[in-house]
């Protein structure tokens, strides 16, 4: 048999065997003392092994690794499903220049089984694309485009369809209409994980009383719970960061929330940009050189990258010691490497930030005002920076004091491209930036590199054409040093504003505390003095009370507070864990 031949090749197996016995024992036969590792019957040959090797379908891979896509558990699966559908709906509307109106409905079918219905007024999907969009992983318009969008890879909604089918066996039901004159398309589909393609079960035209839009209905195994990681919270925060959208939400308890549009203006449309040379990696570059239709290197550089003018392209080729007239197809690995060096020794303008659509710090602050009745708000919008050739912008808002609890860690709200991030806070670069900031110098308690402690809410928004997430489920920002540094700078800017307030408040509070102390001592001193001198106690008391200036101090302290008229208590309570039902005294 061949099997033992391999075994003898490994000296490790021979280590106990006397050296001189080697030649003889080398020619192994079965039954020899050297058949140490396995019995013949258990060994499997490489050939046999090779038969087991086969390509893993992308859909199969994700079907087994649902957690990578945000389907770790029942509660999270519900949120992820809604999130993917809503993200797509918002992206589609914005791209088509339509003010979004999105309806989200969650129906509890039975224990652990829910129906999720998401409907938008977007442009609709043409019939031939419906299957691919909803039932083919890594299919989409966004992966190759360089502009700020919610979705990036084209995985999300198909993953939801796959999860729904896997847990309930039921197909996704989708209806979409692109034109008021035509009927809508209705399809029922599941995903064929082997082929990573749609398996259409029903395909027909239907009347749909809507001008245009898409509606998807999924049955899935899930669980619903209120709290900071609930769909309620997600939709609320989405409404805050997308004031141009109307979101109507019916939760499983059949409570309807209407987050009405607060702005009739669509956010500035993010422009698509060419890649910036600084961000290109050698593999990409080689592929681009092979794929291009340009005839010269000069033209290739000018037309495939942003911020590369003719002069800049010439400088790059000069710095790379390459001819500007070279044919791109003739450039291979070595040439590409030289070109990359050339790019990095050339000064190139930072990419244009047109491709970004930040929330604006005012809006972020307004979101906090609606949610939190605080004493002080501050917000900061940093200028855009470039990370790996992609523009990126950080915005931060703070809410301090008021009705927030003082002895617990600060609350952190994370957003990326207007999408709230509710999971994986611990592994997120935003969290790292917050804990790595020295809050003590802004008058906020903090022990070591922990979350600051105090009545504080911090909102951080990152917008970029390519947000580096830690996983496909897009729950946390990667711990990129440049991004963390930029977030820290924003937090520091906001922190300094906060410090001014905290200091003033502490001072005013201290003075008021002093006045309160004097107030308690005044009757005592007045009493003693009256006893000593025979002067009327009441007069002394009154005169001394005047000298504390307490009313003035109280007024000064309340003047310090921001007056927040935007606070909306019922809004703030959406998504909060239910408090214990209290007994109404009348009910007895």
């Amino acid at each position: 048999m061949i099997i033992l031949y391999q075994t003898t090749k490994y000296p490790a197996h021979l280590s106990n065997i006397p050296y001189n016995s080697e030649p003889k024992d080398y020619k192994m036969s079965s039954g020899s003392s050297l058949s140490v590792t396995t019995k013949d019957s258990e060994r499997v040959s490489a050939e046999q092994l090779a038969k087991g090797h086969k390509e893993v379908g992308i859909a199969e891979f994700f079907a087994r690794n649902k957690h990578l896509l945000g389907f770790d558990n029942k509660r999270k699966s519900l949120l992820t499903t809604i999130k993917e559908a809503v993200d797509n709906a918002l992206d589609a509307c914005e791209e088509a220049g339509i003010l979004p109106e999105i309806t989200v409905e969650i129906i509890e079918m039975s224990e652990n089984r829910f129906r999720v219905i998401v409907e938008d007024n977007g442009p609709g999907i043409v019939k031939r694309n419906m299957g691919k969009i909803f039932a083919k992983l890594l299919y989409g318009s966004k992966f190759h485009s360089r502009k700020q969008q919610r979705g990036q890879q084209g995985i999300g909604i198909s993953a939801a369809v796959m999860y729904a089918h896997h847990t309930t066996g039921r197909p996704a039901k989708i209806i979409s209409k692109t034109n008021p004159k035509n009927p809508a398309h209705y399809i029922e589909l599941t995903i064929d994980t082997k082929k990573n393609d749609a398996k259409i079960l029903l395909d027909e035209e239907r009347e749909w009383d809507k001008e245009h839009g898409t509606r998807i209905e999924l049955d899935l195994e899930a669980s619903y719970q209120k709290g900071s990681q609930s769909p309620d919270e997600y939709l609320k925060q989405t409404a805050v960061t997308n004031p141009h959208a109307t979101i109507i939400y019916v939760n499983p308890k059949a409570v309807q929330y209407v987050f009405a549009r607060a702005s009739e203006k669509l956010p500035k449309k993010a422009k698509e940009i060419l890649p910036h040379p600084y961000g290109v990696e050698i593999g990409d570059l080689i592929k681009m050189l092979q794929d291009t239709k340009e005839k010269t290197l000069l033209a290739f550089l000018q037309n495939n990258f942003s911020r590369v003018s003719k002069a800049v392209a010439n400088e790059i080729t000069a710095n790379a010691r390459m001819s500007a007239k070279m044919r791109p197809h003739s450039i291979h690995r070595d040439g590409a490497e030289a070109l990359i060096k050339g790019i990095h020794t050339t000064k190139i303008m930072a990419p244009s930030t047109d491709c970004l659509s930040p929330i604006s710090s005012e809006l972020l602050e307004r979101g906090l005002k609606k949610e939190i009745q605080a004493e002080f708000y501050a917000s900061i919008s940093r200028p855009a920076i470039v990370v790996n050739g992609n523009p990126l912008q950080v915005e931060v808002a703070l809410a301090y004091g008021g009705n927030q609890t003082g002895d617990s860690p600060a609350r952190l709200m994370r957003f990326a491209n207007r999408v709230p991030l509710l999971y994986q806070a611990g592994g997120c670069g935003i969290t790292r930036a917050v804990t790595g900031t020295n809050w003590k110098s802004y008058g906020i308690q903090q022990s070591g590199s922990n979350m600051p402690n105090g009545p504080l809410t911090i909102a951080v928004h990152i917008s970029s054409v390519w947000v580096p997430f830690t996983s496909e489920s897009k729950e946390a920002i990667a711990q990129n040093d440049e991004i963390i540094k930029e977030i820290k700078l924003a937090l520091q800017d906001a922190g300094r504003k906060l410090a001014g307030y905290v200091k003033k408040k502490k001072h005013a509070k201290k003075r008021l505390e002093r006045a309160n102390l004097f107030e308690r001592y005044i009757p005592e001193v007045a009493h003693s003095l009256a006893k000593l001198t025979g002067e009327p106690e009441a007069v002394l008391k009154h005169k001394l009370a005047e000298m504390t200036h307490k009313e003035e101090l109280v007024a000064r302290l309340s003047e310090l507070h921001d007056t927040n008229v935007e606070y909306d208590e019922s809004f703030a309570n959406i998504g909060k864990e239910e408090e214990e039902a209290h007994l109404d005294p009348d009910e007895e």
Partner: protein
Amino acid sequence: MEPWTNYRRETMTKTPKDTLVGIGKNLTDGIKKGTPPKIHIPVRSLSNVEFDEKSQKLRIGARMSEREFFNVSHTRKFLQTIEVASILKGLLDIGKHSSLRDVFYMAKRTIPGTKTNVVDQQTESDKAIEDLELMSGFSRENLHVNANKMGSVAGNVIIEDSGDTINWGKMGSGGWSIPSNVENIQFNKVNAKYIIYMEKAAVWERLHEDKFWKKQNCIIMSSQGQSTRGIRRLLQRLSSEHKLPIYVLTDNDPWGIYIYSVLKFGSISLAHMSEGLAISNIKYIGVTCDDVEKYQLQRHYIALNDKDIARVKQMREYEWFKHNKAWQRQFKMMLNAKAKVEIQALSARGITFISDTYLPEKIKNNEFIN
């Protein structure tokens, strides 16, 4: 009644009660005009104590501290001072005396709306009384507050106190206990050549049992530890009214020497009382470092601890010791030996050694440190 202090002589024409009420009136007049109430008290710390070369007494300096009601770190103390003033005024109104402890309980109550008491410890009301002494220029005895009596005396002396005639020679084994207020004592007969004042009651009992005062025709007096005001006042009166020399017997350690220092020059915390309490011609009889050598007391040495050493070093810098060669020599010897000796170490030479030999010899040979 005669105020003792060298501070605020101008108040002397007023009675203690009027003076206290005056302090209050000053404040209430200001309050009615909208002036935040504030009192001024001379600073009672070494930094505000001067040594007067001429009188050889400690004297309080001119530095004043302010105690403001509208200053959080003063508020409670301010109240304590005023509250105690009103209590003392009440005592003077009805002509009754009370103890320091009584005053403490009269002042103690919880301030409504807080968990704080006007006074928590007797030291707080005691301090307020000392402050009022300084502010009024009257001693606490003048303000009708007496301290606990402490200390004993025996000797060939007949006095009159509150209508009773007392013979200090016929008070049994305990002797006469010295009250805190000795102002009203009258000396009817004083038959003694000198006074020995000792730090330790046990030594006093030894001498009393040996009838030392009878044999030597002297007065023996003691208290436990630092001497009280009553004792100091009594010693001063005997010194000034009957010209009796006073010799001080203490342990050979910095604390013993400081007892002598307080008797002779006055104390830092009661520098304002020096005039009435310090006795310039008092002399130190022992136990000296020379006694240790002369009577071979080395085997009874107790090592000085860090606190002792620090205290010696601090004391030798005091203005009133700094230029005194005899004392500098004692301090140096003590630091060199790094040890101290108790009075009772003399008993090793025989139980009556102190009364039969040590004291008579020293007095005969005029062996004192001055």
